[in-house]
């Protein structure tokens, strides 16, 4: 089964002219960065557009993938760049809320209002209000689980600069979510 081929072998096949084999990589990775793209762009549909664009770009420039065995990491760099491009070009679309009425305020009655989904919606909304570089850093570190050196490689930024982005991002997020920081979803009753 070609679907079990390692990434490096699939890349080799595609570069040799078998472009249909690229579908293996699409199938393998189209959902891998969904959560990251959704959190960066703000909506699942926009995330799908970004992932689609990233995969097409990966195909066009596949011969620039220097380490085909590490195709996933290379693709993630493209997704990350495409998310930033999307956010920069499509800033006007950010005026559309993730969900209508999702305001970033502390719930009046946590026992009734504060579900995990509600918390998630508020945090996403707050993230969308952060500067792109801070949002990107927070997502890579705390959602994707990358280490600082891994982030530095993906973003082509020094570790000290990343630490500063993370610090500013955390502080901004705290400011926007001040009322939620004291709230425990495991024990929502005040």
């Amino acid at each position, binding site marked *: 089964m070609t679907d079990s081929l390692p990434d490096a072998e699939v890349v080799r096949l595609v570069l040799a002219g078998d472009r249909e084999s690229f579908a293996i990589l699409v199938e393998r990775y189209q959902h891998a960065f969904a959560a990251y793209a959704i959190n960066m762009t703000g909506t699942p*549909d926009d995330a799908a557009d970004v992932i689609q664009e990233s995969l097409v770009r990966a195909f066009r420039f596949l*011969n620039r993938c220097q380490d085909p065995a590490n195709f996933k990491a290379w693709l993630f760099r493209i997704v990350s760049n495409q998310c930033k491009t999307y956010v920069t070009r499509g800033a006007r679309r950010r005026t559309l809320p993730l969900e209508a009425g999702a305001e970033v305020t502390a719930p009046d009655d946590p026992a009734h209002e504060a579900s*995990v989904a509600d918390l998630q919606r508020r945090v996403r909304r707050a*993230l969308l209000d952060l500067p792109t570089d801070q949002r990107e850093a927070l997502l890579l570190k705390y959602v994707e689980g990358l*280490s600082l050196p891994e982030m530095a490689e993906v973003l082509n930024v020094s570790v000290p600069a990343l630490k500063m982005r*993370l610090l500013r991002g*955390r*502080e901004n997020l705290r400011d926007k979510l001040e009322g939620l920081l004291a709230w425990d979803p495991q024990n929502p009753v005040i």
Partner: protein
Amino acid sequence: MGSSEPGDLSRYLDGELSKADLPEHLRQEAEAFERIIGSLDRGPAKLPRSVRGAVMERVRAIPAPWWRRAWTWFATPRPLRLSPLHGTLALAALIAVLLVALPKPQAGPQTSTGVRVATRFIYLEPNATRVSVTGEFANWDPAGIPMRRGADGNWVAEIDLPPGLHHYVFVVDGTRWAPDPNASSQVDDGFGLKNSVLLVTGSRSS
């Protein structure tokens, strides 16, 4: 500008300190932050739709490189029906073309595809064991066009290029892609690095 986040908390959240090393009040702050940011982990793990069909449709629409199309054309067996008359004419035409073309290998920068300008690429990297230059003119092949080493640590290559804008980078030791520090401009390559930009005009460039 000062920070309101205590240093130990920053170090923990940067992954440089274990939670056990935090005092109790900072541990609670750390857990509060992790709870908030951790809620995003429960986000949808899948896109709302498969993009496979759309991606592959666009992939199929991208033209293959000219050399691959040419090779496919040449390598594909096809029946050839030729009358003796046409065969003789074709052979005569081929011989005529060879007679005209072969004596003029040093015809200068004019080629059948138009003007090409001898362009010199120079990159200073005394510690490299090999350096090549790649770009659109080399189909972004990582192997690129090998450069020769000069006595002063400079690597040099001369390539005939058509006039116009060319994007390029140097590939150091086969792994590191480096833009030209002496290029007049750089552009994002879409992968987090920079491509250098060269404008080739009608005369020799470097």
